């Protein structure tokens, strides 16, 4: 049945080359853990992507219940965690995944660094990777405020004070991040918008570039 539907579409649109280009590529021996077990270090980039997918999915579902408003934010998080079926799991996936994605990304960075895989001609990909790292940190920072509990509020106050110490533009950065003079209603909506629209969009674009480059250049050779 599925095969028939696929054939019907493929006959008209010739979609096979499209996904073949993406999916069909050889894994060199030195990155295949079946040949050298130490090649598991090549998994961390893929694991980072896998957890990112989980983050995007669980985040989408969380916004079905969450409201970015100082009166209701905490209550809505409490409700979705305690009253909605599997709320504790969906929120748990997002909560723990946020930390795990940083860990995986860090291990991936270490592998690329110690293997010297960032060297010519792959310098640009390293640069994009570092940008992804910053976007991830931004996602962690903005997401931390959203439950609107004491920890969230004071962590954000500290974070914004740190931004305040930037020479020259510090005060502007503070007002821009807080959306005003105090850390309150406008900070919360602002962080929500950054967390669910702006940074994910930037992340998808950068990841697209990251993957495009690795497919174009191929994985770096054995040590």
């Amino acid at each position, binding site marked *: 049945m599925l095969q028939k539907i696929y054939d019907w579409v493929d006959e008209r649109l010739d979609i096979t080359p499209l996904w073949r280009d993406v999916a069909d590529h050889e894994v060199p021996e030195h990155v295949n853990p079946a040949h050298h077990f130490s090649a598991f270090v090549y998994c961390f980039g893929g694991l980072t992507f896998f957890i990112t997918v989980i983050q995007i999915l669980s985040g989408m579902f969380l916004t079905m219940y969450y409201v970015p408003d100082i009166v209701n934010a905490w209550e809505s998080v409490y409700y979705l965690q305690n009253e909605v*079926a599997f709320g504790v799991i969906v929120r748990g996936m997002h909560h723990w995944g946020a930390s795990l994605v940083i860990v995986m990304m860090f291990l991936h960075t270490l592998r690329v660094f110690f293997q010297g895989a960032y060297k010519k001609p792959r310098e640009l990909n390293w640069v994009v990777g570092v940008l992804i790292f910053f976007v991830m940190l931004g996602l962690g920072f903005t997401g931390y405020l959203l439950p609107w509990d004491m920890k969230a509020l004071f962590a954000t106050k500290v974070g914004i004070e740190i931004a305040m110490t930037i020479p020259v533009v510090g005060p502007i950065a503070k007002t821009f991040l807080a959306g005003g003079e105090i850390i309150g209603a406008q900070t919360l909506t602002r962080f929500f918008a950054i967390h669910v629209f702006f940074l994910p969009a930037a992340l998808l674009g950068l990841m697209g570039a990251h993957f495009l480059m690795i497919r174009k250049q191929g994985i770096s050779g054995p040590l």
Partner: protein
Amino acid sequence: MSKEDISRRQFLNYTLTGVGGFMAAGMLMPMVRFALDPILKEGTDQELVAVTSVEEIANEPKRFDFKIKQKDGWYESDVTQSAWVYKAKNGDFIALSPICKHLGCTVDWNTDPSHPNQFFCPCHLGRYTKDGTNVKGTAPLAPLDVYDSQVKDGKLYLGKAKPRKGA
């Protein structure tokens, strides 16, 4: 069973699809159940609320407003509801929901000059007789909901508005 029944490639394909599908299901199942929760939640029962003393109720339908406590997810509030209440010929008190069964507009009593003594919905000219039965040929397809009611200490208590069978 001969050796060629299943190739190594096919076996690996099946195994990978199975394991991948299992992982994807494990990931998506909690999220989907999370999203479907409102469908599977049990409806809440509503306490009876004192609306008016029975002396106020006449043979002519009169609109009474009353407040109920509503729990909407994490948001709890007092919400005003209305009922058209009258005393039937046999002495029963009838309390009808003012919400039109066509598309949910609010019906009024006796406001259509060409059809007196009927409930009238201005949105699509829906009409109901005094007992809430929808008039055939007008927009609504069911009679007005009727409130659970109880008389205690000379007061009329109302609960949830319940739907009735179509006319």
